[in-house]
């Protein structure tokens, strides 16, 4: 196995980025991530991106964004209709399999042109569920009520998660929801998708992220403190909501075990939990103890940029470890209804 590290990262997240096409939004981030380590596209052994046509409202929308990489002459490239964390995973596999020592990863999503609540309904079972167009928040509300009534978590604890996210986000310039709110203030919010309150639901954001990966000594030559991917795994639960226990996450538990997240000492964790209830389920599934700083950036609750929220979690852990705020961290990404798919990685500083 090759040691693969994150060596640079750039992100942008805003409530709305209405004036730029996807490629216009991404070019500055792509340039920033590459120039931070003095590389150009010609230096990249592989490039992989993540995005969703249903957010863009356009078939094969990613092909236009590839122009931002400068694919002349043609580059070795792939794309996933997934969060960029899965693009990172593909790049990591490619680095293991081929004689290359660099890879470029980016992902992005603009939810503002459409209604994310409706777009997400189209990911549900096309025969039995999608024709009813259940609101995406209402679907999570079903899982949330089961979780609350199981006694595993209380509304008070969910409000504590939301309050902590807002507090941490108040110092994160990329956070969209960054106003502090006390637990009492959050509990006083009227339900928006009973039993979920507005603060329980991740703030929808437009944006993207770009990242450079490098292997072995190449990584050491590119930056002062590479952050190594020590373990990485992703798992999927059944799609049918009625066929799995929505109060826990078997897929996240297995991914955490396989990646080493449950076995090792962890200083911080960034979770792509789109709801406070998801964070409660993931904290248990990943075995994160009291000593772990969970979502120091505010997490996906503070800015839920579809298709990039997971890759941003890798970036947030990378930046903290790179500057010495901890040595070992967990990065998590999720996809699908009610945390169907989970990706977990353990990152460690040199």
């Amino acid at each position, binding site marked *: 196995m090759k040691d693969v590290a994150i060596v640079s990262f750039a992100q942008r997240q805003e409530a709305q980025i209405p*004036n730029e096409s996807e490629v216009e939004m991404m070019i500055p981030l792509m340039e920033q991530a590459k120039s931070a380590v003095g590389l150009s596209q010609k230096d990249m052994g592989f490039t992989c991106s993540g995005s969703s046509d249903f957010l863009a409202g356009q078939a094969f929308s990613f092909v*236009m964004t590839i122009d931002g990489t400068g*694919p002349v002459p043609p580059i070795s490239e792939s794309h996933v209709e997934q969060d960029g964390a899965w693009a990172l995973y593909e790049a990591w596999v490619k680095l293991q399999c081929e004689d290359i020592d660099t890879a470029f990863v980016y992902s992005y999503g603009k939810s503002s*042109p459409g209604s994310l609540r*409706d777009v997400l309904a189209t990911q549900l079972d096309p025969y039995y569920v999608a024709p*009813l167009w259940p609101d995406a928040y*209402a679907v999570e509300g*079903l899982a*949330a009520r*089961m979780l609350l009534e199981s006694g595993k978590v209380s509304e008070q604890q969910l409000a504590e998660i939301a309050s902590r996210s807002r507090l941490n986000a108040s110092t994160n310039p990329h956070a969209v929801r960054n106003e502090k709110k006390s637990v009492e203030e959050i509990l006083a919010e009227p339900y928006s998708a009973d039993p979920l309150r507005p603060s329980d639901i991740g703030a929808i954001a437009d944006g993207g992220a770009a990242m450079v990966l490098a292997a072995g000594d190449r990584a050491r030559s590119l930056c002062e403190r590479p952050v190594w991917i020590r373990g990485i795994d992703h798992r999927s639960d059944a799609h049918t909501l009625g066929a799995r226990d929505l109060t826990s996450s078997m897929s996240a538990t297995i991914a955490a075990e396989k990646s080493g997240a449950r076995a090792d000492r962890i200083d911080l964790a960034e979770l792509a939990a789109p709801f406070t209830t998801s964070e409660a389920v993931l904290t248990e599934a990943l075995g994160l103890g009291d000593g772990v700083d969970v979502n120091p950036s505010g997490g996906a609750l503070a800015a839920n940029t579809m298709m990039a929220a997971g890759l941003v979690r890798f970036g947030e852990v990378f930046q903290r470890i790179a500057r010495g705020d901890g040595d070992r961290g967990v990065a998590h990404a999720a996809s699908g209804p009610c945390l169907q798919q989970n990706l977990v990685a353990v990152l460690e500083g040199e």
Partner: protein
Amino acid sequence: MPEEVLQAPLVLEYPFTRTTGPVVGRFLTGLRERVVLGVKRADGTVMCPPLEYDPANASALDEMVEVGQSGVVVSWSWGGPRREQQPFDQPVAWALIQLDGTDTPMLHAVLVGGPEQMSTGMRVQIKWREEREGHITDICGFVPESDETGPKASATVDLDSVEAVESVRTPIRLNYSYTPGRALSEYLYAMKDKRIIGDRCGDTGQVFVPPRGVSPVAGKATTGMVDLPDVGYVESFNITRVPIAARPDLQPPYCSAWIVLDGASVGFMGLVINCELESVRLGMRVRAVWKPDEELGISATNILGWEPTGEPDEVIADIERIGRVGAQQTRRGAERGGVDSQQRGAL
């Protein structure tokens, strides 16, 4: 850029008709006849709605059994205001409902006035739609069990003697507000004044039209806009002789061409008009035909097509380069001050 970036409504529609297969089809046939079916798993438990496979071990399932039309709310949520696509005429509660005789819950709506009428553990029963076609929406929703809901199970129906449901309509409609971005907005505004603009690569000097704000050669933002003349030559073309259903305005036969404007480094698409289609050839010089001034809008449709100028043909010096960036490098193109050969060499 003086004007605001453009926005326009975009509606995405997929008129899907899906094949059901035997298990889903049998279930939907049952709904049409007011019968609810589940499927039995190897361990004896019953899933409803039924899947063709067991999500726990992927084994095929096909033993269908009738289940109850009432059940228990396992969990519920209240989603607030009704959304446009939903097949309900009122806000609804969403619920996971475990029907009597089943072991997994189904997701559907409960038709109540508000969240205060919902509770976990409450019993609900199906409210059937009057007109049924074999679709999940044959169930209007569920109502509290005590309510009047018309006749209950019709256990006398023999599903083998009725027409089986084999497909189901599941259309998708999504509304967007689309933006072409800054560069294309500027391009479309210029069209209003019968101007064609491209954007320039700061590294190579190449000019791209339509402008997209990015140089695909350098992988960098472009460095500014360039006015281009509305004349150029045909680099490639085809003649279409079959109609396209979605474009009744395009009457075959018509000629689609890849047109390279003088000074541009890439071609773009246009129709060749006002000539015999059989006379269209590679290298033919063409000029834009614009709509009358009073009909000009902020739109690329301002160009009705491209007609021959009558000038001598462009001599394409290097046929190998056709279709590649910089392919406009021809003898005459060079004379007109197109991208010089040194810049082309950088490719």
